Structure formats: structure tokens, C-alpha cells
């Protein structure tokens, strides 16, 4: 039998050194007894630890995950933890993959121990309550806490980083942690009689605790699952838990039974905005009216109506299909990826974008949600038809010479019927009132092409189409 004595309850380095040596000497787990200096088991140990393990010869690899688990599990209060960890280590030497087998008894046990330690650390972060000793600048903050496992050293750096600007001490029966504004230090545990007295803010904290509680949702079991009674004795708010529970039913009953009282003073209400009837269509009134459009169901799932934009005296009007994800959020047409593609092509073709009115055939974003993204969906004929009134009224205000329909949806809206792109693109088509139309592809079509060569080719064709618009714009500028 090998007797190993560790310096402290949390002596991971000592355990690691001994365990490494034991494994290298092929000492089976059943032949090792682990003790802690000054601990109870110490009484039965021989006066000196086994000599061969003073020699440290060689190393071997273990999965990083084991080291991480062992560092936590060793802080567990279970007296068997050193032996359990050694047993797992001994088996891991043969098979590294064992650590991934959640169904193995030792792996499950060590994982559960580590989990209990992390939980206790987390609860310590949550439930430590500092009490102010002395006032203001000379104040020192002291807490009394009783952790379930040996987590003081594990939990202390959190408080040092959080409360760097104030000196504090956390007193526990095992070990006390101190921060002086510069460094952490640890001293032996103390008894509860050393705990500080009530803090001046605790009554205010209790008032908050009572007020934030909703008696109509009383659920004591859920509270105790997360805040077990063992922590209550050091929580200043715990003293009012019982009265709050006892009073909850009465308070809820009263809220349900008591009728609402009449308002005792005339209430100021914001004035309703004046609704003015537009005398004639102008862009701003059109935009405002369209913002409340309910002509089809697309408004429901979209953020907002995305109306056209551009100068009122534009002689070219570009019509796209519908706003996309980004346009829907921003409320402006062609600000997303397709818009960037369009800008580039317009510049290359020599069209001055600032003198162009840009809009869409359908003014709400149509999509289906797929988890965290919204997938664009092509609008159908009833939706295009329902939205056409806005396009028509935009045309009558802007009075453009040329309307560029980009994509099939835009072409359907501009011509009032399904109009294939392939057969009609690249040439001027007469519209009523002396206007001309030009049909081309939608810039998002270019974005979707998978073949890079086709992409370049199609982009060139798109720019060529837009050059027709550029020519017209220059002619109009010369005429003006």
C-alpha cells in the first residue's frame, strides 16, 4: 500500500506530481491511500510517505479535458476525490478516448463533481454580500460566506477584477480572501463570530426585493431550485421570504377582486395628429399615404413600406422588384448588395444616379423566415397588382421620359402584363404619354449567377443596357 500525503485540501500540484509518479510505476488505484496533512485520515497513515515517489521520472500525456476537470473536481468536499481522480487517470493512460465517454462511471462521477464545484463557485459569485465597515473613502467591505466546496481560491479572482477599486475581505470557515486594491492574499478560515454586522443599505435592498416580487406568480419551488435554503442564512433579503410568501395569496386576491378606481384627475393625452387630405399628389403625401398601405397582406410581416427616392424632376425612373432585407430595415430602396451592384453599373454606364428616381414594383419586403435569416420570395401577380397604384402615382408626379424596368416583376408592373426580359431587353419601347421604357435584368440576378464567367458577361450586358439610359440623360441635359 502506498500512502500519499497532500499539503492542503486543494493541493492540485501535489496530487498531480504524486499521481504522475504512481502511474509511471504502474501502481494500481487499489494500492494507494490519499491523505491530507492535518486531516482525519492522517491518523492512520504511516509516519512518512512512500519514498519511491520522491523521485520524479518522466511524464506522459493525458487529454487536456481531464486536467481541466481534475482541477475543478479536486476542490470537491468528497474525501474520495483524490482516489477517484487517480483511478480515472490510471485508466486514461491506456485509452485517451475514455474521457469522451459520458456513459463511463468514473467519467460521469468526475464530471458531476467538477460541475458541483463550478456551480458552487458561481453561487459564491452570486450570493456573497459585502458589508461596509467605516464610511466612504476609508470604507472596507467585508463578507461572511459558507461555500459548500473548497472554492475560495477559485472564486476570489472574480471579486478582485470586479471590485478593483475597493478593499475587501471574504471570510469563510475554510479560508479567507483579501484584496487591498493591489493584490489578493489568503489567510486561514475563521468562525462566524468574526462576520460583520448589518449594512446600512440592507433595508433598502429588502424593500427592493419585496417590490420586484410579483405575488401573482408565486413559485417557491423555482426559487429554491436556484437559491437553496442552505444559502439563506447569509442573505440579508432571506429574512422577508417567509412573510412575502404568506402574504402573496391575499395580495393577488385583492388585485383581482378590487375594481379599478376612476381616474381622479383629467389625464393629459397627446394630441392626435391632424389628418389632412392631400389636394394633389406630391411625393411627400404619397410617401406618407403609402406608409399605411394595407392593399395586400405583405405589410404584416415587413418592417415598413419602402417608397421610391430621388429628385422630383428626374427624367429617368428605375424600377426594381421589391425591397430586400436591408432595404426593409433602413426604409430606403437599393441600399443592400443589389443596390451596390446597381450603383457600380450606373457609374460605368455614365448615368448620374443623383438625377435618377429609384423605386420598386412592390413596396414591401416579401420573405419567409429561416431561423436567423429572411429568405427573399418573388411577389405574385395579385401583390404586384395591389401595389401598382403607387407606381402609377409616382409616374404621374415624376413624369419621367424613360422608365427602366429591371427584372420580370418590374416589367410586369410597367407594362401591366407579363413581359419576358429576353425578348424585349436592350431597346426602347414606347409607352403611353410619349414615355419610353427599357427592359433589363435585375441587379440581384447578377449576384445569384454561380458561374463567374457568366457573371462578367451578364454584367457587361447590364451596363450596355444602362448606356441607353445614359445617352438619353445626356441628350436631355443638352436640351435643357
Amino acid at each position, binding site marked *: 500500500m502506498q500512502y500519499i500525503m497532500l499539503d492542503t485540501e486543494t493541493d492540485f500540484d501535489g496530487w498531480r506530481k504524486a499521481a504522475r509518479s504512481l502511474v509511471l510505476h504502474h501502481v494500481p488505484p487499489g494500492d494507494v491511500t490519499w491523505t491530507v496533512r492535518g486531516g482525519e485520515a492522517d491518523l492512520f497513515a504511516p509516519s512518512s510517505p512512500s519514498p519511491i515517489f520522491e523521485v520524479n521520472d518522466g511524464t506522459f500525456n493525458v487529454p487536456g479535458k481531464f486536467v481541466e476537470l481534475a482541477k475543478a473536481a479536486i476542490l470537491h468536499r468528497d474525501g474520495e476525490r483524490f482516489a477517484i481522480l487517480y483511478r480515472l487517470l490510471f485508466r486514461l493512460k491506456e485509452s485517451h478516448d475514455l474521457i469522451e465517454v459520458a456513459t463511463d462511471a468514473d467519467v460521469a462521477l468526475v464530471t458531476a463533481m467538477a460541475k458541483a464545484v463550478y456551480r458552487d463557485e458561481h453561487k459564491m459569485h452570486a450570493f456573497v454580500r459585502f458589508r461596509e465597515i467605516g464610511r466612504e473613502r476609508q470604507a472596507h467591505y467585508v463578507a461572511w460566506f459558507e461555500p459548500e466546496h473548497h472554492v475560495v481560491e477559485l472564486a476570489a479572482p472574480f471579486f478582485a477584477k470586479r471590485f478593483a477599486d475597493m478593499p475587501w475581505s471574504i471570510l469563510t470557515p475554510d479560508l479567507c480572501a483579501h484584496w487591498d486594491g493591489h493584490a489578493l492574499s489568503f489567510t486561514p478560515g475563521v468562525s462566524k463570530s468574526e462576520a460583520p454586522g448589518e449594512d446600512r443599505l440592507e433595508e433598502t435592498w429588502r424593500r427592493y426585493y419585496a417590490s420586484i*416580487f410579483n405575488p401573482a406568480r408565486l413559485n417557491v419551488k423555482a426559487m429554491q431550485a436556484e437559491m437553496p435554503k442552505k444559502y439563506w442564512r447569509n442573505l440579508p433579503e432571506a429574512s422577508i421570504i417567509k412573510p412575502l410568501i404568506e402574504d402573496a395569496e391575499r395580495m393577488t386576491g385583492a388585485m383581482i377582486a378590487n375594481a379599478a378606481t376612476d381616474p381622479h384627475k383629467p389625464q393629459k393625452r397627446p394630441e392626435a395628429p391632424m389628418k389632412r387630405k392631400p389636394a394633389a399628389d406630391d411625393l411627400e403625401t404619397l410617401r406618407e399615404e403609402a406608409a399605411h398601405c394595407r392593399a395586400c397582406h405583405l405589410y404584416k410581416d415587413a418592417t415598413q413600406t419602402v417608397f421610391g427616392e430621388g429628385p422630383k424632376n428626374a427624367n429617368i425612373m428605375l424600377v426594381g422588384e421589391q425591397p430586400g432585407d436591408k432595404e426593409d430595415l433602413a426604409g430606403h430602396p437599393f441600399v443592400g448588395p443589389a443596390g451596390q451592384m446597381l450603383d457600380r453599373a450606373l457609374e460605368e454606364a455614365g448615368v448620374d444616379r443623383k438625377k435618377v428616381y429609384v423605386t420598386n414594383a412592390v413596396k414591401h419586403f416579401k420573405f419567409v423566415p429561416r431561423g436567423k435569416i429572411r429568405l427573399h420570395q418573388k411577389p405574385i401577380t395579385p401583390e404586384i397588382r395591389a401595389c401598382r397604384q403607387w407606381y402609377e402615382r409616382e409616374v404621374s408626379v415624376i413624369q419621367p421620359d424613360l422608365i427602366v424596368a429591371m427584372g420580370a416583376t418590374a416589367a410586369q408592373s410597367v407594362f401591366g402584363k407579363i413581359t419576358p426580359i429576353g425578348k424585349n431587353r436592350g431597346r426602347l419601347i414606347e409607352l403611353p404619354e410619349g414615355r419610353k421604357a427599357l427592359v433589363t435584368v435585375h441587379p440581384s440576378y447578377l449576384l445569384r449567377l454561380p458561374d463567374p464567367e457568366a457573371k462578367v458577361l451578364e454584367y457587361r450586358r447590364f451596363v450596355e443596357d444602362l448606356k441607353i439610359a445614359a445617352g438619353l440623360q445626356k441628350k436631355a441635359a443638352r436640351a435643357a
Partner: protein
Amino acid sequence: MDVQRKLEILADAAKYDASCASSGTEKRDSSDGKGMGSTAPGMGICHSYAPDGRCISLLKVLLTNACNYDCLYCVNRASSNVPRARFTIDELVKLTLDFYRRNYIEGLFLSSGIIRNPDYTMEQVVSVARKLREEHHFRGYIHLKTIPEADDALIAEAGKYADRLSINIEMPEEASLQQFAPEKDVRAIRRTMGRLRLKLDEAEESRSAKTKARPQRFAPAGQSTQMIVGADSASDHTILHTSANLYGAYRLRRVYYSAFSPIPDASHALPLIQPPLLREHRLYQADWLMRFYGFDVGEIVDDSAMLPLDIDPKLAWALRHRDRFPLDVNRASREELLRVPGFGTRTVERILATRRTTTIRLADLARLHVPRNKALPFIVLSDHRPSPHRLDAAGLIERFKPKATQLGFGF
């Protein structure tokens, strides 16, 4: 009125907002010696729990409960006779720091009634955050309620100081919002959520961009919202459809569901009954199925448009799709495993890691933290195969229903 009394009134006014999270933000601490505070980026810390089972993580208060609006479901509506109070900015800043220093809280969750106009209200809320961050170098968590239609510059400033921003959608349907909250405008709410998402996206892009320029900061813990459940007649299908839409459109971190709860001096237009807590719980489960388990709304809710109350939504789905079961745990894909009743996301990860080395048997279920009763009819293990007769039996559902006496929720 002293600060303690104000705190009682303004905490009471804030408690119907279910959000309390202090998680998911950037890593910060005060080890540079300037100021105080830190964040726990992985998971937030709940410093206490009220007897309603809800966590207390942040100091959750209103700046004032005076409000121009008259939303029927709200305890602070203009026509309610609850006592009114208003913190000064300095009072609230001091209270936050005093509570934080004693380790009572992770930070501040600040909302406000609408006073004067949206911009004025937003400016007041932002002022508290500005003072905490700029003057006191407070590094703790800040959640600010965003007022719809507030000026863009104020929203940008709110995002600079806050970890999380939120705007409540309040009702699952536009019509019920119009009915219950006539001054609120769902279009304005959605437009503002859209603006927040654009700013969140921009900040994310600037963080990942490989330039030396300091990334612009905007609410690293994202945005969230809340929907009240049970005040109007919206079905669970409508509620979940709205959630799916909001998650997709505005990249919300969370949609909170808040069972409509009786409030002091309540309006007669509302159902004053015990809050539908079990329904709220089922909605959260369904929400999780959408976000972490790959379910679509249409799969979760059947034709009745309501989630069953007696069994959880995943089990209900499995019972409607018995042809897909039993599933071989040692072979099935991750996506399939996620659909087995009783299997959580962590269980599935453990199963995938374990079965690379060994096969999974009946005796292993406990160590995988799988509830046997729920999972067994749906799975095949190396030493377990449910009889097909049992899976097809009409009475299978009875196995899962809680005993009548256990139906109560809470106590």
C-alpha cells in the same frame, strides 16, 4: 419622498418586464484600477431569486412611472391611480453603485414611462447610463429600454453605453396593440427595431474588420423584446409566428413571453385571472425548439393553433410523427437526435461524442441525464427496442400526462 419609497414605487412599476438577463455581452473588468465592475460574458449572474422564482440580476426600475400613454395592460398607464414617483439622475446613479458595491446586482435595467415626448424620455434614460459610464467608470451591465421613434443620435448614444437594448412589441398582433395601447404604433416599434439591427450589424462588421481603427461600440449583448401572453385572444400559433418573424428580421437575442398578470388598479377590459404560467412555460419551450432544435413554427403547433398544456411541445410533435420513430440512438444524425423527446442539446452532444468510442445501452441513459420514461418508446439502443405495438398504441400519450394532482404549476 425619500429614495427608499421611490425605489418601492419604481421597482413595483418595472416588475412586469420579464427580461433580467445579464449575459452575452463583451468581457470587461476594472483591473485597470479605474472605476468598478465587470461582466460575466458566458452566463450572467443571478444574485437572488424572488419567491416568484424569477431571478434578480439587475436593479430593474423605471426612471419615472408617470406616463402619457394609456396602455390598458400596464400598471403605469395614465389613467391608473397608482402612486407616482421619479428618480433624479443622481439618485439612481448612486443607488446603482451602492447596490453593486455590495454585490447585490450585476448592473442596471432602466426603463421609463413616456414623459413629454420620446426624445426627452430617451435623453433622460441615456443620461443615467452616460453618468455611470463616463463619470464613475462603471463596468457592470446596463440594459436600456429604447423608446420607439427616438432620435437616431440618442439611440446611437444608448448603444454606446448599454450592453443590451430592448423595445417591447407588447402584443402578438397589430390589432390588439391598437385596441389595448392606442398610442403605441407597431410600425414605429418595428422601424426602431430595424434601426437597432442595422447599427448592431455595423458594429459587428467594424469589430471583425481588419483595421486599426477602434471598433464602434453598439450594444454588444444585442436587442430583445417582450410579448404579453393571455391579455388578448391571440393563439400560440400567432404568437410563435410573430416570434419567428422578429428573430429573423431583427436578430433578437431573446423574445420574452410574459403571462398577463393581475395588476393593482387594473382595467376592466382585461381578463383578471391567475396568470397563465403553464402556457407561458410551453411558449418558452416552443421558442427553444425554434432556436436550438431546428423546428419551424408550423411543425410545433398543429391545426388547433394552441400548444398542449399537459405535455411539452416536442413530445407532442413526436406523438404526431410516430412514423419517424423509433430512432436508433447509435446511428441517427444530430438533427434526428434533437427531435427525440427528453433529449436536450447537451445530451445530443454527449451522445455523439460517446458513440465514437462505444455503443450506448439502456443502463447509460441515467448518466446521459435522459428521462427514461419519456424517451424509451421513441428510441432503439443496443439492448433496447420498443415494441412497435406500443409506439402505435392510442394510449401512449397517457404514459406522459402528469397525474391530475401534479398539474398545478408552482407550489
